């Protein structure tokens, strides 16, 4: 037995002297599946899985019954029942997610601990949410049925008009086709999966061609007892709303034994306390201000940010916290987490804390900690035994220096890491561990910490499609986590995000399966056994999944892991990055060899072809980085040049835009732009003069930063990339609203979302009778240290999108004939 928290209570008995239990004989069923009369739906699903795969293996259909049938020789009991008790079966006492398989005499019992969460008595309709959300800007009319009965029930229960956003029993989405909560701990299903694996089935990928199913006319199992307990009780995946509808994808995760042994909610729950129309009307003081009378817009725009030090808000938060625990008794831990995005602190509180703590991140962290200590103390009084999860975020990541040992013992710090995949980098791995150890030394609650993880994430259709393989690093990570973490909550991308495919006839699915399935499979195996023999697991995968191409595919994956593990930046540019141009043909050469090694149209061929197809955009990655656009000189501007909308200070380098689709000079809608670089290299200024015959009718709806609807307005869009970073995008409309985002993988890792790249872009826009002018200030420290020079130019594109008038028009300094973001067409920016 390995030194492991996995509990292998009993191995497979050779038991040659004992007769095997026959399930199928000569292609005919000689057994039946028995479940309890009141079996939970997930147990029925497990029984259906057993029935389905035995049928696929042998062609025989075995029946599912509620009690043993006279005359049927053998029984497969799925889950405990009065029938298993009659047999004298007793499940071992597990402390965590587990399964137990007992094969004896003429039966098998496949069972495990079941932690099934009841559906919430409260509910909210999309129309409720649409009306409630973003109270600072939301002007939508009240729906006729608002509040819906489920929401009204919650208000009555909670005693205040709190929202139900991010609040529930902690069992995850309810999958309608399967009629189960996706995070229910379904021990019976795990046992069935383990039993099927024992028969040779392998759940390597979801959907078509994903499962290995052996073929046999006879199925019999020798007597044995196999009991396993998971190393991690939290094995949770989400790919957002698709979890509600994707039967096959969720079934795959259940077959990989995913689920949570305990229920927690680690989410941005403060929204529920303050960010509703009702609360805004009654308690505007709950909303933090950035300056006197100016409320933070927050994220998503218009949501605001709470004032953590407001006594009323604190009281309401405690009431909310207590009511959540009252509503969902199974819930063991809850976070009254700050809103998504950067943690924003009211200017008055910030000023007060800055006097003492000097550093803005430290001051913000300490405000947040004080708020949590207040909640924890109140929770200890009303709900001893329950845990408060401390959630921080960008802008407040420091360890709170106002932490006082022994003050509270019911707070646990969950850990977040942008991507498991990036822990292949020693620097990242060391930093993650160091941060966790700092917390664990001081804030060590009564329970293990959950870990939130983006894992690996082909998050958009334009996200580079290089293979991301990190089996060794992941195993190292899971071993490192075992002493202090109870598992992971992992976000991965649904197809609509990663592939841009909405409205599939079969509903939303897990995204990028050909590229992701192996790592998801490995992660789920490591949840149960971090000490598993990785080489054995992978060798079996190559052999079973790729057949005659096993050797080449092993070479492919080994090469992919070697490339991904290079200790270089994740930002792939012409001059930097872990991926080299010569690697790309190597991937495709290996896949071509693999395809040649298997019969065309075989399942192996289809699996390899699916990977090859998913990787196709990789072929354009490096050619897309080679810019052919003309040079563009950025002149110098003083470091202290005012940002005042006076463009007279930008005397040189004015460029005329042309029609982005035809290259035609637009006489009637002329646009002139230039770029200036500060002497201290800290910022770039883009000045734009946009002539507009219809200034009165100009399209300008968005008034706040980072609203996607800005792209329905007339905007100037600036795109910049550098030898060290993939491109950044900044858009400004005539209201001066700004939208900025990063597509650079390393920056997104740091900021967690492309849109959360907020380096401090500013803009001053002035409107005249015949034109509007914009002066845009863009801090550039995130673009790296190389360039812009003739040797290391930066890519630049500046576009003007005009929505005013009868039809959409676009103009740019580097016409692409398509979207602005066709990188090879961009201009090469340099400074002398």
């Amino acid at each position, binding site marked *: 037995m390995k030194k492991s928290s996995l509990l292998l209570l009993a191995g497979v008995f050779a038991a040659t002297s004992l007769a095997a239990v026959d399930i199928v004989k000569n292609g005919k069923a000689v057994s039946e599946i028995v479940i309890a009369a009141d079996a939970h739906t997930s147990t029925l699903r497990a029984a259906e899985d057993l029935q389905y795969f035995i049928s696929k293996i042998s062609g025989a259909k075995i029946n599912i019954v509620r009690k043993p049938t006279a005359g049927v020789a053998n029984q497969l009991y799925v889950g405990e029942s009065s029938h298993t008790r009659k047999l004298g079966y007793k499940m071992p006492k597990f402390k965590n997610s587990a399964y137990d398989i007992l094969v004896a005499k003429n039966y098998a019992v496949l069972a495990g601990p079941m932690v099934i969460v009841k559906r919430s008595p409260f509910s909210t309709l999309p129309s409720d949410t649409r009306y409630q959300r973003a109270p600072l800007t939301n002007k939508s009319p009240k729906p006729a049925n608002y509040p819906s009965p489920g929401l009204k029930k919650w208000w009555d229960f909670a005693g205040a008009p709190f929202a139900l956003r991010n609040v529930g029993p902690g069992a995850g989405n309810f999958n309608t086709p399967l009629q189960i909560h996706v995070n229910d701990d379904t021990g019976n299903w795990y046992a069935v999966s383990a039993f099927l694996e024992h028969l040779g089935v392998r759940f390597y990928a979801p959907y078509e061609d994903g499962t290995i199913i052996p073929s046999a006319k006879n199925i019999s199992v020798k007597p044995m007892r196999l009991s396993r307990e998971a190393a991690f009780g939290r094995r949770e995946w989400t790919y*957002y709303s698709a979890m509600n509808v994707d039967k096959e994808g969720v079934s795959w995760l259940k077959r990989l034994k995913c689920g949570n042994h305990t229920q927690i909610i680690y989410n*941005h729950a403060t929204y529920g306390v303050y960010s509703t129309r009702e609360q805004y009307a009654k308690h505007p003081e709950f909303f933090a201000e950035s300056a006197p009378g100016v409320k933070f817009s927050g994220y998503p725009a218009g949501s605001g940010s709470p004032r953590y030090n407001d006594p009323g808000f604190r009281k309401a938060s405690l009431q909310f916290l207590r009511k959540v625990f009252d509503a969902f008794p199974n819930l063991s831990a809850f976070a009254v987490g700050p809103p998504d995005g950067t943690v924003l602190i009211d200017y008055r509180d910030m000023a007060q804390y800055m006097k003492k703590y000097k550093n803005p991140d430290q001051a913000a962290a300490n405000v947040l900690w004080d708020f949590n200590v207040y909640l924890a103390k109140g929770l200890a009084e009303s709900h001893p035994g329950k845990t408060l999860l401390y959630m921080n975020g960008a802008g407040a990541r420091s360890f709170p220096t106002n932490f006082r040992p022994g003050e509270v013992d019911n707070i646990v710090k969950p850990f*977040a890491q942008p991507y498991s995949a990036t822990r292949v980098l020693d620097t990242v791995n060391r930093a993650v561990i160091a941060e966790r150890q700092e917390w664990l030394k001081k804030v060590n609650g009564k329970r293990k910490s959950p870990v939130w993880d983006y894992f690996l994430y082909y*998050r958009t259709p334009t996200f580079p499609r290089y293979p991301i393989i990190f089996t060794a690093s992941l195993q190292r990570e899971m071993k490192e986590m075992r002493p202090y973490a109870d598992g992971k909550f992992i976000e991965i991308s649904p197809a609509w995000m990663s592939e841009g495919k909405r409205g599939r006839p079969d509903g939303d699915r897990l995204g990028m399966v050909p590229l992701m399935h192996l790592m998801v499979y490995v992660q789920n195996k490591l949840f149960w056994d971090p000490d598993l023999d990785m080489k054995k697991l992978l060798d079996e995968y190559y052999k079973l999944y790729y057949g005659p191409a096993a050797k080449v595919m092993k070479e492919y994956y080994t090469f992919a892991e070697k490339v991904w593990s290079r200790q270089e930046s994740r930002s792939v540019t012409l001059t930097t990055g872990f991926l080299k141009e010569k690697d790309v043909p190597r991937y495709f050469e290996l896949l071509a060899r693999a395809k040649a090694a298997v019969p065309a149209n075989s399942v192996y061929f289809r699996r390899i072809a699916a990977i090859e197809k998913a990787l196709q955009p990789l072929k354009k990655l490096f050619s897309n980085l080679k810019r052919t656009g003309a040079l563009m000189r950025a002149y110098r501007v003083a470091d202290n040049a005012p940002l005042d909308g006076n463009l007279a200070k930008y005397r040189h380098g004015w460029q005329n835009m042309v029609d982005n689709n035809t290259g*035609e000079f637009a006489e009637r809608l002329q646009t002139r732009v230039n770029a200036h670089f500060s002497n201290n290299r800290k910022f770039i200024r883009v000045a734009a003069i946009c002539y507009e015959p219809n200034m009165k009718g100009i399209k300008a709806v968005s008034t706040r930063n980072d609203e996607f609807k800005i792209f329905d307005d007339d905007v100037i869009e600036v795109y910049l990339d550098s030898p060290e970073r993939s491109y950044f995008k900044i858009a400004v409309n005539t209201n001066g609203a700004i939208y900025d985002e990063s597509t650079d993988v390393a920056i997104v890792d740091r900021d967690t979302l492309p849109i959360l790249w907020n380096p401090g872009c500013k803009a001053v826009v002035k409107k005249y009778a015949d034109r509007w002018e914009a002066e845009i200030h863009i801090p550039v420290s995130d673009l790296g240290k190389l360039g812009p020079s003739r040797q290391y130019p930066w890519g630049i594109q500046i576009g003007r999108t005009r929505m005013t008038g009868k039809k959409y028009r676009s103009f740019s300094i580097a016409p692409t004939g398509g979207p602005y973001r066709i990188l090879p067409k961009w201009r090469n920016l340099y400074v002398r």
Partner: protein
Amino acid sequence: MKKLWLSVFACLCFIHLNGGTIKDFQAAQNEFRSSRWLKAAEKYLALEKKVKGPVKEKVLSYAAIALASGRKVKEANAAAARITAPDWKAYTTLRILSATGKHRQIVKDFASADINSWSEDIAYLGFFNRGRSFFYTRQYPRAIADLEKCAADAGSDNTVKILALNSLIHAAWQNKNTAAAVKYADQVIRITSHRGFHAYLDSCLSKARILAQEKKFADAEKTLADFNRGRNWKGGGVWYFHYLVTCGDVALAQGKKAQAKEFYNRALSTKNVAAGFKKPLQNKMKSIK
């Protein structure tokens, strides 16, 4: 932590040209701008085979206009006939007629055309061409209505705006509304980026003449002084000639015959001016007693 991020870029472009085609388009435009009409037409027609959608309509229209400007009217009409979008088709026909000086035909065919409903890129040009045709056929109020609309919608297209305003000056003057004519001229004078453009020069001198006619001699002289400030005529050129003649006319209107003659003599001695301009001036000088 469940972040729903809208990752879908709104790809609003519905017409696309690839890089090579953009260069072809720009090459044709360069020929057009250089008045090499038939070369431009040839390039547009070659491009037409590679593009589709709204760009195809535009390319065909440009080809037809280039052909008409190069006196290939039959071919121009053939190209226009292949345009399917009604507004682009009508616009192109109008431009072909305009290029060949068929203003009566334009007035006849387009007097009731709903130019406002055309694409805004061509509507203001439609008003310009129809307005000028109204002007040439002496229908001044209708000319003024169209040309004002053109000037208002021309945006940053100062070339067309000045041409429209210049026509407006003359239309208003012909219509006996000198105050409006001066107002239009002032609008032109404010567009300082086009001080060498013939319509700009004509507008300034026209303003001086109108003011002299109104006996506002000081204003007329100031207009001429402002017009001349900072210019280096290098002793010649037709617009220097016109400027001197206008100065002479303003002096003569005030009864300053000697001063007028001096201006006229300087005008007659300017270089690079066709004899056809000088002969009427010589006749005028003879008539001054």
